[in-house]
């Protein structure tokens, strides 16, 4: 019986495809609990990212901020999405402020990822807080975003913003804004 020479090659290609398709999907999933409800009564103002004392590049901070504005607009969960400094936000009655603080950052390398596959991942961990105007925390989550295989380092910021938006969408919300509707903090 003849064994095909293409067998190992096919297995190899299949393994790569599985790695390329399944694992990014896995990294995109975020541990979150709560039922899916809309928070259409709220508007949100996205504040600039606080990198603390971490050596996070300014371009990464800007990329997270811009991607957050984009992703929150896409979810259509908020009536309006404002940027920091937008004076129209002061006229909106039900406004939440999104504060993002970087907690952990691992600088990766695209070349190292391409050569080794297992190392060189860019990883970001942030704490996202939704606060009312008077500083009460409505929602608080720790979210991860990374790029492990394909794509540039900045792609980690896109994945992170998408995960934050997804987390907010999957979290339980007070439907109509009110002083008694504030949720307990779930870190």
């Amino acid at each position, binding site marked *: 019986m003849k064994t095909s020479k293409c067998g190992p090659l096919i297995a190899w290609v299949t393994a790569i495809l599985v790695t390329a398709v399944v694992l990014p999907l896995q990294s995109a999933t975020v541990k979150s609990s709560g039922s899916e409800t809309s928070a259409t009564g709220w508007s949100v103002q996205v504040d600039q990212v606080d990198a603390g004392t971490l*050596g996070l590049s*300014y*371009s990464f901070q*800007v*990329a997270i901020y811009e991607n957050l504005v984009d992703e929150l607009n896409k979810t259509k969960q908020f009536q309006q999405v404002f940027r920091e400094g937008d*004076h129209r936000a002061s006229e909106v009655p039900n406004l939440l402020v999104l504060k993002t603080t970087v907690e952990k950052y*691992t*600088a990766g390398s*695209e070349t190292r990822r391409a050569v080794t596959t297992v190392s060189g991942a860019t990883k970001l961990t942030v704490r996202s807080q939704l606060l009312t105007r008077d500083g009460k925390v409505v929602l608080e989550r720790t979210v991860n975003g990374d790029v492990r295989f394909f794509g540039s380092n900045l792609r980690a910021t896109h994945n992170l913003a998408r995960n934050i938006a997804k987390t907010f969408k999957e979290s339980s919300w007070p439907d109509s804004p009110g002083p008694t509707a504030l949720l307990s903090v779930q870190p």
Partner: protein
Amino acid sequence: MDQPVVPRNQRNVRRFHRRAGMRLLVALIWCGLAAAAQNTTQQTASKPFSIPITHLLGFENAKSNCSGTLSIQDDFLQFQQNRKPGAQVKIGAVRDIFLGDESKQVGGLPMTLGKAAAPFGGGRVVSLFAHKKYDVLTLEYVDSDGGIHGAIFQLDKGQGDVVKHELTALGVISSHEDQSKHSAAEVKYENK
């Protein structure tokens, strides 16, 4: 003594002519240089600054990850994709500028697929050499409502400095220290 005897008056006249000639020559050379310099200054003043660039994200009304031209025209910073109407921001609205760098794999998706399909780890060897350094230029600007925007551009190595100098010459402030390298090593940072 067979040297011709020249009267003293005639010698003085010759000397005067020589000096006058030299002065005229110097004046002509100076005028020529001044005119050339003026011409160059006029040319640089009238020619708008323009540079090929890739817009990564954030510039209002511009598509992400697309190549185009960044130019400074009058009081505006304009990004124009090939033959399409450009997106522009007033230079006075730009609040901050930051220059960093990044090493990226070249070839995009086709190259990535090709490398993945190459047998016996050939793709990895290619990856080892198929990377290029770029300058990453980050701008922070405000829109008409006061909202803060950030825009990230990618340029060939060394070009970022040129754009930064042009913008700082026009009054844009750079409050962040330029980052020479952040992606070389896999470093972990933690806020506690």
